[in-house]
């Protein structure tokens, strides 16, 4: 370096949270959200459509089973599956890919449960509107796979998208869960930062549950 270089500026660039800038550190946590979104949505989206298709729905409707009970019953079975999947994904991410986990496991557990319930309820909601499984499948793919993969900020940064897509991404639960996962894995921050996201996941699960139940109720009357 020559000493005579007149006004010189020394740009010191430091990287926080992911100092070696490894892409796996942000892809793996995001992937957990994407896998859960697709899996959970797909798991339940066919369940009620199937009952309609094979003609069992009329029988179910004639029993004293209440819609809320049906939604919760259908959801709980898949909830166990989804939870097992998320534990596997977490363990594989931390052990095989040695992605650091710096946050609170409790917060991770709570937000995973909230996200999982929301997406499972969403699947049931779709399913209760569809009469065939093909229809439910197509709707499920459109509303879980696509936003889960593209509008969640998993790989493609939401900030750089056109405004319309940014607004649409606001109602994609995976967006909030991806933010929670990335923060928990890499930043190690807690509820003080992630409260908004957790509240959204809670609201999403509640609203979608309520919508699914009321949709089933209406079909009962018909």
């Amino acid at each position, binding site marked *: 370096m020559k000493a005579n270089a007149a006004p*010189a500026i020394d740009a010191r660039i430091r990287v926080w949270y992911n*100092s070696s800038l490894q892409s796996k550190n942000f892809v793996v946590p995001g992937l957990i959200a994407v896998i859960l979104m697709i899996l959970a949505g797909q798991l339940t989206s066919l369940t009620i459509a199937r009952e309609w298709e094979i003609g069992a729905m009329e029988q179910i409707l004639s029993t004293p089973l209440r819609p809320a009970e049906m939604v919760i019953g259908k959801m709980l079975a898949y909830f166990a599956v989804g939870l097992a999947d998320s534990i596997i994904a977490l363990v594989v991410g931390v052990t095989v890919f040695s992605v650091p986990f710096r946050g609170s496991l409790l917060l991770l557990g709570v937000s995973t449960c909230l996200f999982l319930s929301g997406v499972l309820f969403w699947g049931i909601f779709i399913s209760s509107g569809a009469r065939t499984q093909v229809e439910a499948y*197509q709707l499920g793919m459109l509303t879980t796979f696509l936003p889960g993969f593209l509008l969640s900020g998993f790989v493609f940064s939401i900030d750089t998208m*056109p405004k319309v897509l940014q607004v649409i991404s606001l109602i994609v639960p995976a967006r909030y869960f991806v933010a929670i996962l990335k923060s928990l894995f890499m930043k190690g921050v807690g509820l003080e930062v992630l409260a908004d996201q957790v509240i959204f996941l809670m609201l999403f699960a509640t609203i979608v549950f309520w919508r699914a139940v009321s949709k089933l109720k209406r079909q009962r009357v018909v």
Partner: protein
Amino acid sequence: MWERIRVILYKEIIQVLREPRMRALLFFPPIIQLIIFGYAVTLDVDHARIAWMDMSKTPESRALQARFEGSGRFDVVAYPNSEDDVQRLLDQSDVHAVVSVLPEFARDLARGRTAQVQVLLDGTNSNTASLVSAYAAGVIYEFAKDLSPHPAKNQQSIQIHVRGAAGGGRMPAAQLASDTRVWFNPDLRSRNYFVPGVAANILLMVTLMLTAQAIIREKEIGTMEQLMVTPMRPIELIIGKTLPFALVGMINMLLVTGGALLIFRIPFRGNFLLLMFCALLFLMTGLGAGLFLSTISHTQQQANMGSFFFTTPAFMLSGFTFPIRNMPTVVQYLTYLNPLRYFMEIVRGIFLKGAGISVLWPQMLILTVYGVAILGLSALRFHKKLD
């Protein structure tokens, strides 16, 4: 024989297209997928949010800030006053980077000493972080160059240090140099690359799932037995069950190609008929895989989950979103087993490079072999299962 195929074709097409909602769901999602992919998928960073911590508060430091804002790459959204503010901004992901100008900035510049600017990056998204770092280094470099009366002599006057919080991870200079070039890369490039790939994916998804579901549906609602007691032969059933979805797949292919050209103005330099012919070749793989899926599943839900074993690796290992060249060598070899990889190359070749048969024949040959093998074996297996 043809009469019976005609009848089942007719039945299948009615069943698929009877409901208006189903019609919409067959042709609407591919368009949505195209549009979202086209707009969402860009790995470039346009308006990085940065925080500006000006401890110098001099005309020079404000000039540097103006440079940052004027570059069109950065929006200054916060002015932190303390280290705590900086920590909070980064923790909450409010900003991508924090630029701090040290108090001695103007004095050092005036005395011809090396002035320091610190750029603190949120490395969570490594792609965004390396772009932001390259852009920031570029702005500072230009600023330093313009300060000097003899820009040519001063090429070396900026030092860029990159280091991680942990002390390790020094970014190689070559990486910085190559990243800086992204600056001049027009935003459209990545879109041109991604959008044609959507067509390939959609063709696979549509043919695979619709075929599998149409067959399993018959099993599930118990009409398969009825079909089997008719004089219909398995091969006729297979043709009747797959052709409608080949048709739906081809229509989707047309829609998506049309959308790519009309909405996104993706260049189309090749032969359209060649593209459609290659789509037909690839279709055999999708239909065959769907047929196979239907022989191993009893319910549509099983088929649905089973399809992930096929579509996810196909999707990830096709070079669609993740370049094959960046994968570990072992995984690169695996991609040769993936039929979608070849179709992806064909689609991109025809769209972007105007490649013809003379270039694409190896891929076409492989697709034919895959298609015939997968469709043939699945048909055999299907045949056996029926007996």
